[in-house]
């Protein structure tokens, strides 16, 4: 039987019950949310299950939602089953004050650099990462630059009249 989004959803519900929430399928890609303590268990299940076989971690990054109190940071795992060619997305939310998330480096070697990058730009603390230091920014940096607390100037503002730059 070919692997479908519904089958994946059913298998995850059988295994984890109602702990996995927010089932959506934007543009056909199954997306769901797990509690952050369960992220490794879900990833391991998706990896090991003989039918699911999500063994390729395409991408891992974070998103900052300043307005969601208590779950300001979201970590997203993009997984790919190369055999059946199905992609899914796993999201977990974490509090920005204690952004501790279990590291997936034991499961995916590729998570090493991606988690370092996520730490570098969003300050997610991946517990169990072998070498969680900054990767693209200078070591001395003491803030996380891609968080939303650093807004860029609104390009459509009209109150500035600058002859030199034509605004």
């Amino acid at each position, binding site marked *: 039987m070919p692997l479908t989004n519904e089958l994946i959803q059913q298998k995850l519900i059988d295994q984890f019950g109602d702990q996995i929430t927010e089932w959506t399928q934007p543009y056909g890609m199954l997306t769901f949310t797990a509690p952050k303590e369960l992220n490794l268990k879900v990833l391991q299940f998706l990896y090991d299950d003989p039918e699911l076989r999500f063994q*390729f971690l395409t991408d891992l990054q974070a998103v900052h939602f300043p307005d969601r109190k208590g779950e300001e940071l979201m970590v997203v795992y993009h997984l790919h089953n190369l055999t059946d060619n199905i992609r899914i997305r796993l999201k977990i939310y974490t509090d920005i004050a204690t952004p501790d998330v279990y590291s997936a480096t034991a499961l*995916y070697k590729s998570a090493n650099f*991606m988690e370092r990058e996520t730490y570098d730009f969003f300050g997610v603390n991946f517990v169990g990462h072998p070498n969680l230091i900054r990767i693209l920014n200078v070591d001395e940096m003491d803030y996380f*630059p891609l968080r939303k607390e*650093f807004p*860029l100037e609104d390009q459509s503002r009209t109150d500035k009249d600058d002859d030199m730059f034509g605004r």
Partner: protein
Amino acid sequence: MSEHILLPEGSIEKQTTTLNLGPTHPATHGVFQNILELDGERILKSTSTVGYIHRAFEKLAERRPLYQITPLTDRLNYCSSPINNMGWHITCEKLLGIQLPKRVDYLRIIIMELSRISDHLICNSIVGVDSGAFSGFLYLMQFRELIYEIYEEVCGSRLTTNIGRIGGFERNFTETAFAKLDQFLATYPAQLKEFESMFNRNRIFMERTIGCGPISAEKALNYGFTGPNLRAAGVDYDVRVHTPYSSYEDFEFTIPVGSTGDCYDRFFGAPTGNVAEYQYHRTGL
């Protein structure tokens, strides 16, 4: 006393050598540094610094309108910037729900395949330079020049192209662009053959690349390899075949797959001979 540089604790007693390799510049952008732990000539351990090369495209993209992001995507890989442009266009079109005419898809495929060729030309001819044969590089670079002239005819620029628009192209391809494309297709295959006969069974090249840096398919997947490097390790996956975009499903082409993942397989995994020619003829543009 404290003016002297102090050696790290235990450096005298240990049996290995620490060597600082770099910072070098792989293709001049950014720096890449490796601190190696050597036992004679064998590398036991390497600590890599990939370099301070982040240019905050994500941050810029938070504020700017969609069409102002396209020039940024040029810079993601300047050897094949049109593909990056197309990737951005196709993403935006998907988000906006735009349906494109077939002609746009096919014109895009021509541009994308050309840039794929020009990218692989760089990879494969530079391997030649690195293993001591400069002439192969010079043979192929003139064809990159031809490809750049086609870009120039289509969009006005060569390296960072900003080609196309969300929803199509800025204008139709000119007659000159098609003429240059014909010229490219007429001359390139023969030159490529010459390049291949110089390298493929060349004793020096084979000895330097076979068994050099091999990786198993399982390991390559776990490390997140993609594209030609993943195929060189023996994983038969190509996104153009498995998840076709821009009407790739209308075309047939062969994808080389390796077995050991060493440099020699990767050399063949990045095919310099390519599908663009009969795609071009089949579309009958």
